[in-house]
């Protein structure tokens, strides 16, 4: 038996005796997990069921409502956050899965002193949003898009920002904002 516990949950190694440590049978039962999530550089402890998504953990448990729920099924991009610097959808990510990773949300994008990220500033200047609901996801996506090197042309920006729907129709201004921020970040 070489199972070990790690922040309150069980990591499975091959069971030598046919029993997992956290239960008397082979079938572990659902339990609440004690998680520590690193969000915007801070540690957050929370008790959640395994089925709780990162999105609902942020919005319903941690009062970090900047990350938006648009479709809750991977079809709109409003819940885009960064995990270890990569843009992902929080609605299809289990909170438990990202323990040990570094999570960045829209609330963590500006500097501590409130200085806006170049993408945020460009969104304001270019009027790249209207209702603002898709905007945190657009901005998180745009920051990653530039970092990935996928903001080389307007055509490339459009393709690599296509995973963030905007019903107000700010797309041309989003392209302009990403183009502007990419240029500023390169110089």
């Amino acid at each position, binding site marked *: 038996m070489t199972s070990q516990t*790690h922040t309150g*949950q*069980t990591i499975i190694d091959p069971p030598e005796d046919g029993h997992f440590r956290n239960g008397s049978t082979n079938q572990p039962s659902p339990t609440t997990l004690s998680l520590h999530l690193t969000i915007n550089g801070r540690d957050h402890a929370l008790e959640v069921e395994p089925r709780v998504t990162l999105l609902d953990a942020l919005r319903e448990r941690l009062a970090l409502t900047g990350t938006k729920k648009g479709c809750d099924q991977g079809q709109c991009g409003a819940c885009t956050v960064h995990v270890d610097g990569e843009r992902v959808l929080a609605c299809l990510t289990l909170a438990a899965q990202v323990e040990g990773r570094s999570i960045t949300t829209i609330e963590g994008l500006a500097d501590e002193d409130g200085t806006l990220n170049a993408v945020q500033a460009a969104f304001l200047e270019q009027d790249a949003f209207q209702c603002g609901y898709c905007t945190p996801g657009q901005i998180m996506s745009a920051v990653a898009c530039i970092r990935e090197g996928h903001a080389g042309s307007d055509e490339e920006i459009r393709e690599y920002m296509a995973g963030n729907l905007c019903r107000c129709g700010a797309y041309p201004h989003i392209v302009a904002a990403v183009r502007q921020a990419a240029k500023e970040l390169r110089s």
Partner: protein
Amino acid sequence: MKDFSYLRADSVEAARNAAALPGAMLLAGGTTLVDLAKCGVAEPSTVIDISHIEGLNAIDVTADRAVIGALAKMSQVADHAAVKSHFPAVSEALWQAASAQLRNMATIGGNLMQRTRCPYFRDPQNFPACNKRSPGSGCSAIGGVTRGHAVLGTSEACIATYPGDLAIALVAFDAEVDLGERKLKVEDFFLAPGATAEQEHDIRPGEVITAIEIPGSAATRRSTYLKIRDRQSYEFAAASAAVGLELESDGRTIRDIRVALGGVATKPWRARAVEEALKGKSLEEDIVRKASELAMEGAVDHGANHYKIALAPRVVARAVLELGETA
């Protein structure tokens, strides 16, 4: 979503053991499993998180062979320089799939386990009949809204389209999936519905995909993936084609050609009849168009998806012809 137990596996062996638990399902990127759990389609009693296993995401590519670890992300493979140069169709199939965010989450192994987007399959509350979900319950799609459904490889049990892109390229180039104890052709890994629509993959309890391997050739180096859809991006294919081409030294005569279809069949669909018809032939538009029609041999439509029978051969022909124009 029903509640489940969550377990992290930190080795392939641990994953294999856990995967054998009744009701256990593997979680890698989560883009299929979490989605289907929300739909009420997947009801795991235990979720085995394999995303933290180290060493399973290597991408090892030479001109002769690509070996891609099961946990490599779609985006990593799409952007990989050697994949782009030696296996362009693979890169193109990947970057045209889903969205940048989903490609950052979804793994290559998980991608092979992607399920159909059939709206009836995805809505158990409103459409209890689905042979894929509950064998013998019937097919709600037949007689329903079928615009996206398959015209090839269908059965009376199921007409659901295989939705993925990567596997189309894998099937075209004879890639293999590594299940640890055994390796099999990706083409054989996917199962057409027949009378057993619930069986989509040749994978056994306790098996875990660890890698895919793609043999390199002149045809993989000169390859492309053409995807046609209503929307310019972030949509599944109405019809797609992965094509690889090798020409004789005259630059006109086809020595080797690979063709596989997406968006039109119940599984990634190799179009061997097209390949056979074109081998040794000259790369001319009328010849290519005529041969491409053979891709639809045996096609059966269900009304609203009739257009796919006309569309798919045109996609094949365009892909072949444009590939022929590249140096």
